[in-house]
């Protein structure tokens, strides 16, 4: 019996319309990934790669237009499969015209109402999310304790305030906030960034979700606190066996906590596979973007003999002007004469280059 993944995303597309540029920003342009129960999937990518928008699409939190326009998101718990993008087709009409210009017709408000209907009982309860910038993600007007208690009462069978409060305090303790009873009554502004992040983790996990989505949980925090948050997430993973989608541009956090990794660039997944394989510098077969990314991390190993870091030339892909061929062409240093024509004109698809390891690159299979 094959185990169904807890979450399976297929061909997800989330676009935004730019008035000033009169074009679609193709933030997520055909992303597919899957997470097995108990697994941690790390999504690595730089700004503009579409990783945060992918997470927000799964949570149904995209409010700008047109937003999600196609794809499937299958969430399976306790044998019950739920399609989070159900009926999307009835709200969106996509027409491809010549020269790759698209026309998208979407009933944005209708879709939003539909999403609320579908996600009710899922968001916060089955799938919980923690965000970057913990201080600005928490409600500044209520105490952290009350925020956690509210979440518990909303999403768990615990309805009595007394009991919910006790559980909140218990969770504050579990995320290693000192003096949890005192901190319960603090507002976010009285807490440091690291403590706010812990409070958010407590709020997310107190409802015992099936899936935790962590969007840049350590970015913006001090180095020592980053390590502590990473420790905490590792401990909670071991203790609760929680399934996690971890999003970050910090490769060290990803490699520490993930079982499998997906590398995103320009709105698509360019490589995925077991963390050890994808992030191992020694591993030869890899997508050139992953190789370049690993080589540009500031560290003593990456300094050339003249004392320079190996930066990737050029700027991150502007997801309005998606090129015809491979999205990394133009910045890629591994193009060979044999494949350069394909690289320039045809986008490769994601294909297996090793056991459970896939990459989107013409280097690894015959373009013909």
């Amino acid at each position, binding site marked *: 019996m094959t185990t169904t993944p807890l979450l399976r995303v297929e061909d997800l597309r989330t676009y935004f319309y730019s008035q000033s540029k009169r074009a679609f920003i193709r933030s997520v342009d055909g992303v597919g990934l899957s997470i097995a129960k108990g697994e941690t999937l790390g999504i690595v990518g730089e700004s503009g790669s579409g990783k945060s928008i992918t997470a927000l699409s799964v949570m149904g939190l995209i409010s700008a237009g047109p937003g999600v326009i196609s794809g499937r998101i299958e969430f399976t718990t306790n044998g019950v499969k739920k399609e989070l993008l159900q009926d999307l087709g009835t709200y969106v009409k996509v027409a491809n015209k010549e020269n790759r210009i698209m026309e998208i017709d979407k009933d944005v408000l209708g879709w939003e109402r539909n999403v609320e209907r579908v996600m009710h009982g899922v968001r916060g309860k089955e799938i919980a999310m923690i965000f970057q910038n913990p201080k600005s993600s928490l409600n500044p007007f209520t105490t952290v304790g009350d925020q956690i208690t509210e979440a518990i009462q909303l999403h768990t069978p615990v309805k009595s305030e007394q009991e919910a409060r006790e559980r909140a305090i218990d969770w504050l303790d579990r995320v290693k906030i000192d003096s949890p009873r005192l901190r319960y009554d603090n507002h976010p*502004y009285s807490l440091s960034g690291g403590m706010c992040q812990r409070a958010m983790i407590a709020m997310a996990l107190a409802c015992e979700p099936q899936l935790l989505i962590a969007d840049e949980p350590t970015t913006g925090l001090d180095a*020592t606190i980053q390590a*502590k948050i990473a420790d905490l997430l590792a401990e909670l993973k071991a203790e609760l066996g929680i399934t996690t989608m971890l999003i970050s541009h910090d490769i060290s*956090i990803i490699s520490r906590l993930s079982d499998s990794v997906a590398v995103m660039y320009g709105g698509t997944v360019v490589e995925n596979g077991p963390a050890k394989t994808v992030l191992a510098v020694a591993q030869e077969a890899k997508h050139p973007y992953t190789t370049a*990314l690993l080589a*540009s991390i500031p*560290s003593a190993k990456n300094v050339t003999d003249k004392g320079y*870091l190996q*930066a*990737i030339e050029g700027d991150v892909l502007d997801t309005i002007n998606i090129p015809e061929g491979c999205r990394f062409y133009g910045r890629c240093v591994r193009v060979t004469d044999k494949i350069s024509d394909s690289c320039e004109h045809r986008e490769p698809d994601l294909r297996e280059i090793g056991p459970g390891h896939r990459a989107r690159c013409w280097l690894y299979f015959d373009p013909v």
Partner: protein
Amino acid sequence: MTKTILEVIDLKKHFTSRKGIFSSFRERQSIPAVDGASFYLKENETVGLVGESGCGKTTIGRTIVRLEKPTSGKIIFDGKDITNVPTGDLRQLRGQMQMIFQDLDAALNPKMRIRDILREAINVHHKISDAETDKRIAGLLEQVNLKKSKLGNYPQELSGGEKRRVGVARVLSVGAKFIVADEPTSALDVSIQAQVVNLFRDLQKELGLSYLFISHDLRVVELISRKVAVMYLGKIVEMGLADRIANKAIHPYTHILWSSLVEKQSTEVTRNVRPAQAGSWGVFDFERPVAGCRFAPRCPVYESHGKPAVCIDPSSEPQLLDIGDGHKVACHFPL
């Protein structure tokens, strides 16, 4: 013998707060953001300043360029004592020392196009013709590797890396030789960080610049600095050559700081110290009077030595002592 371009002697910057967030019942409270820092910087050298949020590193940077008035101590720039230079004379001084700010959204006027931002910077300090100004701007863009087309853009239309480069171009346009760079690589993607680091390096070589590089990104500081000073709660606790600080640190705090780099395992054999553990992780509590060594409450060495009284005795606060090869440490029980 390279000359010393900047010397900071026992610099203190205390902020007074009236009441509010520090729930003390006193009317006025003094926050010792920088509490006696001393170091020097030679020409064409990069000194890195590291520490966690709230340690005072940005405040030192701002005080050196006189964006804050020092409470006490001396700042000697290029041989001249600038500690109490009157505000009227600051403009001339700023032609030689500049700061690249951390928050570029706040530092670049969102209502001005990049072209105008750079023009303004040049015109404030140099009386040259418009044509000459535009020529200089073109030259600057080339130096920082920014496309000419960006001149017509507003700051909010630029990416993080591009804004950073505009900040650098602006500082260069003034012609300053000494630059305080506050968190120049934070909030940037890894590959853009690498570009910015390389840029700093190139410019230093080309123009003979000196940098005070303030950052909490230990890896970058390690790579770009010759000397590194580690700060904790307003004081410099250890200082020395970058390689030493990164690999042979002897102050317990420095050691913890570097071994917390998530991927990096400390390969040093540390006597009596449990790996990378420090005590409680609360907010820096200025309410709790700090007696003696400020790091004692979090210090694993203090713990493992049975909480010796000398560490928390206010009269024996550890001073920065030279232990050879320019390596200085303020600790009673260095590793």
